[in-house]
């Protein structure tokens, strides 16, 4: 992998996976996007006050015997709260996924695979209680992960829908961060072994799938110490 230097401070930038497109310089907090040959400085990140979160870039964990390491993250705010999404580099690909996500909200931890594309549909078509239409081929792909999703449309019912804004970035991410962009996220009813969320985008929608586990199940290592705990 090509080495890049921070255009701001000259320190070496970390791109540890080909999926990573952007990174925050560890030394000067510059937000940098990489293109094929060059890199672009797009801003400066404020350090997120996040003393209560035991997860950090560098935390290792396990999902179904496959190890992963957190290499970046994004914080999303909506008007009723916030959540954190951690970008995971997997020790080996799973479910045709080269990377994963760990979504973290109010003490709930969801491991999610690389999302699958859904046809673009406007989020305004949907509300809590309505069911996301999933094309047969996507449903088949999801069925490979869990057969519980094959004949069960109730899993695709929306239980929670909110629009969020990305407010903080840390480490590497698979896209160029954009604080202006609003993301509409629908949480689906899911099944006992599969967590489903849909992200509405301008050109396409994406369905994330994975599993909710207890904190202990991930066997985390290299956690950040939470003061007083």
């Amino acid at each position, binding site marked *: 992998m090509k080495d890049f230097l921070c255009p701001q401070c000259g320190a070496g930038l970390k791109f540890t996976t080909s999926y990573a497109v952007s990174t925050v310089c560890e030394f000067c907090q510059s937000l940098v996007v990489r293109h094929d040959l060059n890199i672009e400085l797009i801003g400066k990140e404020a350090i997120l006050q996040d003393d*209560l979160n*035991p997860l950090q870039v560098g935390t290792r964990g396990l999902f179904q015997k496959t190890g992963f390491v957190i290499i970046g993250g994004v914080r999303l705010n909506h008007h*009723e709260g916030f959540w954190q999404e951690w970008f995971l580099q997997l020790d080996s690909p799973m479910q045709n996924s080269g990377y994963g996500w760990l979504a973290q909200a109010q*003490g709930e931890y969801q491991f999610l695979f690389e999302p699958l594309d859904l046809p673009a549909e406007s989020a305004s078509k949907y509300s809590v209680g309505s069911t996301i239409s999933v094309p047969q081929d996507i449903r088949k792909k999801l069925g490979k992960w869990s057969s519980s999703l094959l004949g069960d449309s109730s899993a695709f019912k929306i*239980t929670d829908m909110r629009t969020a804004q990305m407010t903080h970035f840390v480490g590497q991410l698979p896209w160029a961060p954009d604080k202006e962009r609003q993301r509409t996220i629908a949480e689906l009813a899911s099944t*006992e072994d599969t967590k489903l969320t849909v992200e509405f985008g301008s050109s396409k929608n994406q369905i994330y799938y994975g599993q909710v586990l207890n904190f202990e199940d991930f066997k985390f290592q290299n956690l950040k110490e939470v003061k007083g705990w």
Partner: protein
Amino acid sequence: MVKAITCPSCGGPVTVKYAEQSLSCVCPACLAVLSTANESVSILVKSQLKNAKPIITLGQRYNFRGHDWDVIGYLVRSDKTETYKWSEYLLFNPYVGYRFLVCMDGHWNYVTKTKSAAKVDSILNRATYLDKTYTLFHKGQVKTLFVLGEFYWRVKANEVVMAFDYINPPEMLSLEQDADEEIWSIGEYVPKRDVEKAFKLVGKMPLDLGVAPNQPSPHNQDKTLATYVSSLIALVVLVHFGFLVAVPKRNIFEATYSVPLSTSPTITTAPFEISDKAGYIETELFAEVNNGWLETTVEAVEENTGEEYEFDQGVEYYSGYDSDGSWSEGSRTSDRRIAKLPAGKYHLNITTAWSYPSPSTFTFRVSEGNLSWGNFFFAFFLLILYPIYYFMRAKNFEKNRWSTSDYSPYWSQHDD
């Protein structure tokens, strides 16, 4: 990260202990509910009527169910009419997240959000989660009346949600629903001793009233014994009827004699065989007595050894009319059970005595392979007492449990 803010309502200081996580908090001085999500603090609810006091001290740390918990929030909630109130404590641990400790009528529940929505069967009023089925117990609006402390969501006082409670003791599966979201949670009934110990509430515990929706039946421990006794009953029945089939009753002697006019001579019967079959021997005497009696003294003689076994057997029967109508007393037949006699060839020597006028004949019958129905019924009824007792008590408990539900499977709920 602890954050100190100034209450925009009363100007007093407010400390938010978990400022990164908490979206709202309550000013301890004026009880205004504040939104702390943004840099600027805003007022969500200007004032609240203080109508309850938490019994668990907020801001303290306790160990419960294997984790340390800071008790950070307190809510008083009620049904739509505000007649039925309960309290909820919000517990926080930065690693494992949030839990609720709910106290209703002195009964405690430890509540966690579920990992996925439960599947609802709205026809049968059931919900399924993690392969367990729960039955609808209550459905209705829930109001938040009063809050203290800090919360990971924006608390609105007098906020109303629709709540559905499904039970499968000791668990309760609940759905809270509003226009924006559906939240499923699962509560586990906690014995009050556990709460008392973990949260150091000795002497402060509220009295537990009635039966909680998901309170485990105290008769569950008795269930094993009741099942065990029931199988024992089945075994007794099986053995008894098995015996009945394997060892049929057989008459080995029967004869009718003219009643001799005096007490002698003795009647000597024809010989008959007694086998070594299981079951006892029964003798039966029948005589057409009317307002009188017939008494016999019987000598059973084993013909080879000369061994004698003697017993008495009689019948008496009286009848008549009085002011109450007809009456009768006694019987013309009598049975006598004889302990097992050794196998062999026997004859009987029968001596008779009677009241005047004597009946003209009497019949004597001997059978073997008889079963004791008395023993059987004695054992059966003695044994069945316990399962019946268990069943009545267990059912009574369930009736009490369901007495507060609109979905009770016990029709008698309307009697109370």
